[in-house]
């Protein structure tokens, strides 16, 4: 052991705030009807990961190990699932999650230009966060609000009929 961050019982000592989240995840897993069949027990993996990401913001190695242990599967299996689905992230991201819709309707109505403008202003690429941890920039496929194309989502808020000129205003809206 390289440091003494484990206590006598072998579990990692966590800051109380973190521990609370783990406790809540533990409780959540307890409420799921996971039967005795080990195969079926892993059927709730994606559901649990959704909850974990909601709690922690992203799925750290520690969270992945925790979920793997609770479902009695290997961490590789958990990571395999996380890396497959675009919804799951294993790195912390910016507080304002900007997602430019690049579905077909938004694409033909100029979403690429909007995305370029965000990249230019934030000086980051798609899938990255700004160094100050404020913004994350991503692209997603169709939020189903095609009538408002091009659409940009900032966390839960939807902006419709976005043009490159409106990008500055949207960033302005994201005040801490």
């Amino acid at each position: 052991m390289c440091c003494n961050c484990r206590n006598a019982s072998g579990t990692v000592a966590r800051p109380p705030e973190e521990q609370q989240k783990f406790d809540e995840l533990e409780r959540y897993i307890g409420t799921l009807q996971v039967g005795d069949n080990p195969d079926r027990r892993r059927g709730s993996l994606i559901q649990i990961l959704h909850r974990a990401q909601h709690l922690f913001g992203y799925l750290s190695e520690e969270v992945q190990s925790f979920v793997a242990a609770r479902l009695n599967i290997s961490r590789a299996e958990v990571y395999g699932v996380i890396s497959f689905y675009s919804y799951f992230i294993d790195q912390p991201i910016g507080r304002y999650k900007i997602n430019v819709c690049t579905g077909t309707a938004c694409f033909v109505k100029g979403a690429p230009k909007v995305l370029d403008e965000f990249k230019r202003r934030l000086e980051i690429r798609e899938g990255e966060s700004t160094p100050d941890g404020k913004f994350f920039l991503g692209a997603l496929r169709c939020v189903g609000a095609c009538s408002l194309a091009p659409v940009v989502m900032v966390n839960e808020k939807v902006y419709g009929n976005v043009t490159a000129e409106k990008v500055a205003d949207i960033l302005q809206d994201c005040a801490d």
Partner: protein
Amino acid sequence: MKITSPEELAQNAAALKSRPRKPIKLLVSMGTCGIAAGTAAVLKAIHQEIAERNLENAIEVSEVGCMGLCHAEPVIMLADEATGEKLIYGDVTPEQVPAILAAGTSSIAPGTRTLERNWYYPEFETAKPGEPQARIVLRNTGRLNPENIEEYLADDGYAALAKAVTQMTPQQVIDLITASGLRGRGGGGFPTGRKWQFAADQKSEEKFIICNADEGDPGAFMDRAVLEGDPHTVLEAMAIGGYAIGAHTGVIYIRAEYPLAVRRLEIAIRQAEELGLLGRNIFDSGFDFRIEIKYGAGAFVCGEETALIHSIEGKRGEPTVKPPFPAVEGLWKKPTVVNNVETYACVGAIVRKGAEWFRSLGTAGSPGTKVFALAGKVAKVGLVEVPMGTTLRDIVFGIGGGIKNGRAFKAVQTGGPSGGCITPANLDLPIDYEALKSIGSMMGSGGMIVMDEDDCMVNIAKFFLEFTLDESCGKCTPCRIGNRRMYEMLNEITEGRASLDVIDRLKTLSATIKDTALCGLGQTSPNPVLSTLANFEDEYLAHVKDSRCPAGVCAKLIRYEISDRCVGCGLCLHRCPVNCISGERKMRHRIDQSRCIKCGVCFQTCKFHAVEKH
């Protein structure tokens, strides 16, 4: 309270129907796009106005799902309970609310925009001239409050389930669906009755019925609209399907990107369980059925049924070779039926009204209706439901109001990343599964993206391939690597670097991928390329031979120049993000081509049309 017999259900419906009603019912469209367009503020203004003017007894406000009039959101509808008169307002602002409520249903509030209803409900209305739409799938969407089961029950809700489990044998239900000719609305068009029959024929203690609500096709949003606006219809149909094949568990697999739909489904399931319409011993028939919700996590390939099943099992959503088909070996290796939301939304109506009635709509090979999500460069973006066999012209130019800003129509893309383009030459083709296939496109889930002369078809094909690249699960080589190579070729074309043989190479590789890919995603991925090649080969050739993009989209092939119309106002110079425009005030400016990033800002800002695009 539990409802334990069809009679009790009917009495309950009659009691709900005869309840005293307020004179005016006001429907407020609270679907995702309505909310994004500002319906919540309108709703707040309505409640405020009602409170201020003491209209609580005169107006009943009901929050409903999408009415399909997306182009005019926020939309509200006033219905006069006595006369049946209906008035639809579009682009409503909170400021207009007092005038609209004051006008009631007897007159139109000044300074507002009203819309005409151009659909009818074939279950209880006959079409009038000028009504191109027929609503079966969307019969309750935008009409009933999805969070209140009483509205659904008052409208014969769960009567189809009651009829199926108390008056019909499972085989009779399957025969009815088979006779109706209902085909899978998710894209493939496989006969639903036959799918059910396969699963019913399997001997197994445990079977599953799955609702595929992983609407991943970019540009399609009908499933979201149905789930947000009418969740009970889907639940009821799943229970009917469960009864028919002998399943006691239903699973709804839904995208995590649809939080509102998830919430309304959860509410609907709870309400149905409380009344005993789901759960144990439904209508005292001995039939048990429960429904659970599973979330997707952003993987397009999970719309493919074997991949979807793996995802529900908590695994990576990779498809497997069929056979075995899910009807034989599906979820947890048990017989499983996977149908899409829109397919389920037809089932209740067929049970209530019969196979003959369903066949009276649509074409012989494709009975019933189809919902299309009309989007892109069309004037009236929205959700439309038309009988199969309606022509594209009626949809795009009739219901959709033609092309926006007076541009010329170029093509409609259907079937998403698996589909193809329909050109002006086929505008009058009656649309059904076979017709679309015959012209190199496909029905798909019903996304219809309208494109005008400003869209470059090579770029569109590249867009869809980029999508496939992103979404390919990587299991089979043709899809993982073949599509990458295709994308590179298209990239060469759009950048003017391709050699002439690129078109033949594209065709050969497309054929190989179609023949050898593992699942539907891979097998259909070359379709957008093949279809645009077949219809717009001249555009490809213009890129390759003349290094020219006829639509003026492909950045590497266009250049901006300032003509002698320039008055030297300096606006473009200020706006240029890379400072590549120079010139004295009141003198003609010029663009440094070596530094220009072709963003087009100068072109858009020039008030004198002096910036030219070549």
